[in-house]
């Protein structure tokens, strides 16, 4: 396998599994808990290194996974005590845990062979070099095996618990009455997040995990109304961010992980601007169209009430619109044949009357 392919595949596994669990975080308004977990797993990883003296994957997953859960527990403990609000609880817990991790690394750096840079950037560029051997035979890059297994686990988790996750995400009360505990699901989801984060941590680093957890799901959230398609879209966008990011990194000769986050950001920007339903442009367009239609209907109503030959100057005075806007609305009405010129003024045509009847704004006429 070529190194480029390995990197893209590892990135895609990370992107897809992060996007799948991240979708639930975004929908549950818990994106920043993902941020917190992604930082707080650091001491777990370091402790696993210190205890086992190796970079073996299983102890690392266990160490980081338990720290992830500890983070969730601590944040909830602070919340429950009602001495701190949720944002503050998150804001105090993860830096404390992260600090402990950094101190451990600095004190025992020579033993753990883990340097601070890779904590932030990850080291996906080295993914092809570290191969896994099984019974003396190289069976491929370790990162690919680890993240591939995590992706499979996350897929199984989402598929098996799809209904439960869906209901507890959108209606926790209903979930409770149907008999599956939202609390248990919450912790299951958080375990899945921790697991995903650990895999991603090594390849893209602490902060860019957040990019994969939050950005593709947020973009997908702007593109669809349904959970199933949102999950699929988010995963696809995660893969696209990984592949596109690798392309950018090759082009600019820069950090692969950073470029992947940037690529995710570009995809989000595209969704933010151009989504057919929730994009900024679509919203502006709808806004504009509705505004134009309403203005036209108001003019038609006035003409109907004003009788024959209402002069433009009167309309100008009554509406107080800019002359250019009035002209624009009027010329559309004339073009459609809903209004015709009558001497100095304007007159409603029969088809204009019909349009007015159909618009359902006749009740306005009584108020005018």
């Amino acid at each position, binding site marked *: 396998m070529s190194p480029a392919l390995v990197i893209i595949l590892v990135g895609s596994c990370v992107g897809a599994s992060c996007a799948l669990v991240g979708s639930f975080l975004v929908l549950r308004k818990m994106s920043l808990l993902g941020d917190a977990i992604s930082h707080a797993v650091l001491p777990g990883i370091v402790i696993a290194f210190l205890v086992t003296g190796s970079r073996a994957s299983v102890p690392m997953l266990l160490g980081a996974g338990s720290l992830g859960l500890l983070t969730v527990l601590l944040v909830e403990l602070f919340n429950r005590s009602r001495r701190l609000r949720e944002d503050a609880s998150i804001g105090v817990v993860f830096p404390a845990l992260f600090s402990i991790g*950094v*101190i451990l690394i600095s004190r025992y750096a020579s033993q753990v062979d883990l340097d601070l840079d890779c904590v932030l950037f990850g080291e996906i560029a080295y993914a092809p070099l570290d191969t896994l051997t099984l019974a003396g035979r190289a069976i491929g890059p370790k990162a690919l095996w680890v993240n591939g297994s995590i992706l499979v686990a996350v897929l199984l988790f989402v598929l098996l618990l799809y209904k439960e996750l869906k209901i507890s995400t959108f209606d926790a009360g209903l979930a409770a009455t149907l008999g599956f505990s939202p609390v248990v699901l919450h912790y299951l989801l958080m375990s899945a997040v921790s697991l995903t984060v650990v895999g991603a941590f090594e390849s893209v680093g602490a902060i860019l995990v957040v990019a994969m957890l939050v950005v593709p799901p*947020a973009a997908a959230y702007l593109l669809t109304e349904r959970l199933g398609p949102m999950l699929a879209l988010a995963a696809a966008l995660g893969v696209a961010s990984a592949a596109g990011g690798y392309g950018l990194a090759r082009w600019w000769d820069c950090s692969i992980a950073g470029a992947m986050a*940037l690529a995710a950001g570009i995809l989000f920007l595209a969704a933010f601007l151009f989504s057919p339903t929730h994009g900024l442009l679509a919203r502006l367009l709808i806004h504009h169209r509705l505004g134009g239609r309403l203005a036209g209907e108001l003019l038609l109503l006035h003409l109907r009430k004003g009788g024959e030959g209402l002069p433009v100057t009167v309309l100008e005075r009554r509406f107080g619109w800019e002359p250019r806007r009035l002209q624009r609305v009027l010329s559309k009405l004339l073009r459609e044949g809903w209004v015709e010129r009558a001497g100095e003024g304007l007159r409603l045509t029969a088809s204009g009357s019909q349009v007015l009847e159909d618009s359902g704004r006749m009740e306005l006429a009584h108020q005018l």
Partner: protein
Amino acid sequence: MELSFTARNVLMGATMLGALGGMLGSFALLRRQSLLGDALAHAALPGVCIGYLITGSKTPLPLFLGALAAGLLGSLLILGVVRWSRIKEDSAIGIILSVFFGAGIVLLTYIQKLPDGNQSGLDKYLFGQAATLVEEDLKVMAVLGGIVLTALLLFYKELKLLSFDRAFGASLGLPMRRLEVLLTLLLVVVVVVGLQTVGVVLIVAALITPAAAARQWTDRLGSMILLAAGIGALAGVAGSLASALVPRLPTGPVIVVVSSGVLIVSLLFAPRRGLLWALLRERQVADRIRRENLLKDVWLLGERQGDWEGFLSWPLLMGVRGQTARELSKSARPLAAASLVERSGDALRLTATGRREAESVVRKHRLWEVYLTRRLELASDHVHRDAEAMEHALTEDAVLRLEEMLGHPEVDPHGRPIPRRPAAPAKPERSVAA
């Protein structure tokens, strides 16, 4: 103790940052924007890089300005994404934070590949390397800190209003939107000041942790700000001293660990809000309820037998609530000490004062049952549970009024007599709390 020149720089920088962070963090905490600081810190990174790329120098000022601009842009974009799409604030923060940071890392690696880019020393902004603080950095910090402090003093009243009652402030005609921008601007300044000392990840702790700790000790904004500044400065001093004295101990993380320690102590021990005191209060109430229940149980058994003089055996009392012998003697001991009950081997009976106390509890219980059936028209078989709780909560004063309102009833809804108020109450209220 002699500190090296570098260590003195670190000490001054960390202390300044701690104090400033604590002050601004207090506002962020109260406005529920704890994580905005986190986002701003990450968003500042590409600004630092662009500042370097434009000027080609690593003097502090252009880097500060770049970070300032990028931080502000980031905060505006968060607002924009929330306003112009259906993305919620938490996701918007996550998006801006990670994408800006990704862009920053892209620029950073690009710069490192430039000729002489390796010496740029920009990566100290990631984790913060307080040891690299030079005098010029300190000067910039001091000037920026002075500006922040002046702004806080000048607009203190307005910012206070913004944090507690924005709508009221707006109704007074104050430009709340502009004050919000000002506060964000100040926050960005402090974040940028902190980048070099504690680094991107830990800035949020420099802001929030001292403020969260200070919040536990006071309900007043002024004292909270001062206290937060003090805790921040203390953590700064402790962190920089520790890292100067112990080899391979990074300043930023130690600062965070120290202030987190102060937070934990505050959460547990602060007067009034401290969790330990709350726990103690809860236990005291539980103990009182157990004692009152035992008195009542003994009295009710006496009522059933028509005689309060005889001793009641331990097994009989244990049967009432299914208690163990240990639980029972735990409640009985303080009662005996207060001479409310009299013990004789494995049996006990009420003393005269004990009987009065027990009657007061039963009175509350039965009067409440009358109230529930007569006034709230509940069925008489539905009122016992509620009365079980209220008998421990009603004050003597409330009972008197209740009795008056109900027209001094003689019997409860089940037909049992309501004990009369003792002619001369031993102590007016909660005297069982022995």
